[in-house]
């Protein structure tokens, strides 16, 4: 489908490409169109850096992750086939690169428990006393918080979250349900759920 949209991509300028879907842009990049890559880059740049900041809590590290993420994307071309939401494809890359960046920055020795601690620290270091919701978020289990943010901040569907995290859809629902239940039950955040 997307392959037929842009045959002669040489003549395209970023202005011509701005209205195209991700699928069409990917097809154009597969044909060597750097202008299409530029559109994709600016379409997702801010989201990637903000997501990286969510994991690293460090501005410089977020920018490093941004660079490495798009180099990773670039290495997929030519021949890259987008089969889902582009955010679904980017999320695991950003997450893993962020963990690596934090580990590198803190000279932390890798271990499954260690990675978990690093990820948990991502929200805990963001002045929880300033905001009830932020504080409660930091108290949620990592898995629940991750699904909650993907759903309501990053606007991914449940199926897309399942794909991004490589977990069953039922697990996504269960984590989201538990996260929302905890927030509904807490005195400091129940006001958001009252009609």
């Amino acid at each position: 489908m997307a392959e037929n949209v842009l045959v002669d991509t040489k003549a395209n300028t970023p202005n011509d490409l701005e209205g195209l879907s991700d699928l069409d842009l990917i097809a154009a990049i597969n044909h060597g169109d750097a202008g299409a890559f530029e559109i994709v880059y600016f379409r997702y740049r801010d989201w990637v850096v903000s997501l990286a900041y969510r994991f690293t809590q460090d501005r410089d590290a977020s920018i490093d992750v941004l660079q490495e993420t798009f180099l990773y994307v670039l290495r997929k071309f030519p021949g890259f086939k987008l089969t889902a939401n582009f955010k679904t494809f980017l999320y695991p890359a950003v997450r893993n690169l962020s963990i690596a960046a934090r580990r590198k920055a803190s000279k932390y020795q890798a271990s499954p428990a260690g990675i978990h601690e690093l990820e948990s620290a991502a929200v805990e270091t963001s002045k929880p006393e300033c905001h009830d919701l932020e504080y409660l978020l930091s108290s949620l289990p990592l898995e629940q918080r991750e699904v909650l943010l993907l759903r309501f901040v990053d606007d991914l569907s449940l199926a897309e979250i399942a794909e991004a995290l490589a977990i069953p859809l039922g697990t996504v629902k269960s984590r989201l349900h538990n996260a929302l239940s905890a927030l509904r039950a807490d005195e400091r955040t129940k006001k958001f759920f009252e009609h």
Partner: protein
Amino acid sequence: MQEPDDNEKPPGTSSRPVGPSNTEFLDAPLGFIQALKRTQEHRVAIPPSVDEVILRTARQQLKSGPQSSKLQRFEGLGLLWRKLARLGEWQPNWGAPAAWIGATAVIALVIFLAVIHKGPSQNKSAEKAFVREDLNHDGQVDILDAFALARQLRDSSNLPQQLDINGDGVVDERDVEALATAAVKLAKGGRS
């Protein structure tokens, strides 16, 4: 698997009443979503030099194609292996010796040709020539070194003269560009 009611709509737009007995319990009020989004609003200023280096790399790589990178060579080897396995309907046992021996011979030949093509003397001179550019000291000169230089430029105005990559007497954005260009040329030439 799909639940279009909740799965495809943007969050906070469910029309049915919230209740614990159905999947609308997975939705949340708009006020909550807005508050949640506010907790994640962290403005990270992205320096224009970062955009420039990424887009320049994209232009160069998409123009030349990444066929010569080490990664691509390994991917090509994997593809060849899968094709051979498929051709001989290879099973993970010793019952198909012809396919096994054939595949091994082809892989050995590919590795031999890759080593011959690489040329040890060329590698030695390349490593010697680019020690200075290996800013992040990972043993390779690649685009990450250009990023490292861009970061150093952003963070400090007084950088050592040895970072004057293009030799114009000034350490500035043009050195980042020179390093990025050199890194892409290196990858194209087989040293990645």
